[in-house]
């Protein structure tokens, strides 16, 4: 989709949700969906546009969450400042993991493996390190003032996370239309050919990873402020790595709106599962894993991909040569 108009329209529509309903259930659902969308947008930049599949985006989510929580609770740093620093910390972690991995030439499965390993290391460290509260976790003290990034009702939270998703959408659209975006996609399609055309593939991937990490870390910071409690399993656990990649894959990998669409689907599935089975642990992930396999098997370009194909077919543009 060209231009920023569709993005602004979608944002405007979504912004009206708290004005239409005051149901906490709906708002909660939407906040979580937007949160997953944000993580997905981060993943999508590196994985969808860049073609580098990370299985450990929890590394950035958790870093954002813990940094903002620890800075507030142990060092008295203002919540908003902590938020910004948390994003920077997540971006730094992304840059480090990226530099190590891409300089070693890790690709494909090996890259996925190493990101998985880093996330697990962080999870284990967080579960024993005193600064994170170890097994007990980190609790952010209730302090319902906007200066402390906490609000009485859910609506301000909703608009803030919507704003973040909006910024991310616009950023993605800008990247799509830039030289960096063209280079990123070229690296995804064929790294050697890209190199031969003057693309510094290592730097391009590293930049993508850093931005991706920053976006995902922002989601982590927000999570900490919204739920006021994190522990190693929440911050660095596989659940967020998986939901974070599932959303863009279902919604349309490598597209602007894919993560948002996919996040809505994932969260809806999650709620339906809870409704039907009563919330025993594990079942929602079983559904997610199955959906992942089904989508990869039958609709690898996701929901957005189906729309693109439909549009192409309706407008009569031929996708194949006569040969």
């Amino acid at each position, binding site marked *: 989709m060209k231009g920023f108009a569709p993005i602004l329209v979608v944002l405007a529509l979504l912004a009206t949700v708290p004005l239409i309903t005051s149901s906490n259930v709906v708002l909660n659902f939407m906040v979580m969906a937007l949160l997953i969308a944000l993580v997905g947008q981060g993943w999508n930049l590196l994985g969808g546009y860049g073609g580098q599949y990370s299985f450990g985006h929890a590394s950035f989510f958790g870093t954002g969450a813990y940094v903002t929580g620890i800075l507030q609770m142990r060092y008295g740093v203002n919540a908003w400042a902590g938020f910004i620093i948390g994003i920077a910390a997540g971006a730094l972690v992304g840059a480090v993991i990226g530099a190590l991995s891409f300089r070693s030439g890790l*690709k494909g499965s090996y890259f996925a493996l190493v990101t998985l390993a880093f996330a697990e*290391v962080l999870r284990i460290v967080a579960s024993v390190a005193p600064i994170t509260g170890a097994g007990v976790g980190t609790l952010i003290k209730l302090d319902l003032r906007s200066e402390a990034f906490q609000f009485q009702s859910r609506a301000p939270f909703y608009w803030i996370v919507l704003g973040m998703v909006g910024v991310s959408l616009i950023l993605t659209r800008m990247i799509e239309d830039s030289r960096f975006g063209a280079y990123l996609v070229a690296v995804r399609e064929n790294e050697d050919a890209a190199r031969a055309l003057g693309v510094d593939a290592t730097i391009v991937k590293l930049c993508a990873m850093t931005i991706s990490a920053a976006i995902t870390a922002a989601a982590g910071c927000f999570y900490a402020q919204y739920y006021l409690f994190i522990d190693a399993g929440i911050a660095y656990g596989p659940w967020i790595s998986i939901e974070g990649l599932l959303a863009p894959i279902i919604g349309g990998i490598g597209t602007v709106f894919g993560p948002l669409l996919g996040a809505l689907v994932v969260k809806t599935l999650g709620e339906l599962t809870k409704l039907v089975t009563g919330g025993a642990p594990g079942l*929602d*992930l079983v559904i997610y*894993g199955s959906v992942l396999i089904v989508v990869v098997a039958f609709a690898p370009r996701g929901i957005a991909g189906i729309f693109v194909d439909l549009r192409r077919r309706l407008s009569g543009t031929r996708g194949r040569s006569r040969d």
Partner: protein
Amino acid sequence: MLSPVILVPAVLNGLMTGAVYALIALGLTLIYGVLHIINFAHGALLTAAMFAAFFAYQWLGIDPYLAAIGLTPLFFLLGYGLQRFVIGPAAHGEDRNILLVTLGLAVVIENALLYAFRADTRTINLPYAFNVIEVGTAFLAVPRVIAFGVVIAVALALWLIMRFTYTGKAIRAVAKEKLGAELSGIDVAHIYAVTFGLGTACLAIAACLLMPTYYVNPGAGNAFVLIAFTIVVLGGMGSVTGALVGGLFVGVVESLSGLYLGESLGQIGIFVMFILVLLFRPSGLFGERA
């Protein structure tokens, strides 16, 4: 501290534990060597096998070593089916899709086990689990000695299969040159599935060897598979020798460092070693280029 009285048993124990690690790593490296995929579902499949061994004992009273006789073909078929009917078709041959599908499988299997059996840790109590055999100054636990022997037998059996049976030769052909093998009339999809099945069969055997001495919960397989991954990248992706030698090596290192450093640093240490090897030598000591 370094007296042989302490060292020798530590090394021997390390070798025996390492043998089981090697078996798990063997399955992984076999799958990589032939299908050229990293099986992200390996850990979940091991956990499933361990649960199967547990329930065989719990509900049917079957000793794990006997259960292996039934579980091995069962898991072979499971692996065959997964590759033939799920992974192969779903991935449409694209590497990126294979990654996602095996990840999806891992998530499904692990969480299905979580949902069905909860997160509790379970163990089985074999009457003879604590018997020991005396070898010189060392007291070796019977289950471990059995495990070592079984792994040697399995490795030998696999070698014989690869060397002398038609299927084994077909597997080696596909591993070396898929297109040529296909053109020679080999059914590559079938061979892929057989190889995957062999990999899961190894897991079934390993699970039965592990249950007498260890525990099982939905996350258990991952701990062992992480060690297996480390062995495989250390010994080289696709190298059977690397998996065997690497497994024994890691077992001994773990045993000796347990002597001096204690358990707590264990998990992180293995992850860190894994990351370091991936970063600096992903092709390992014996294996092919990344």
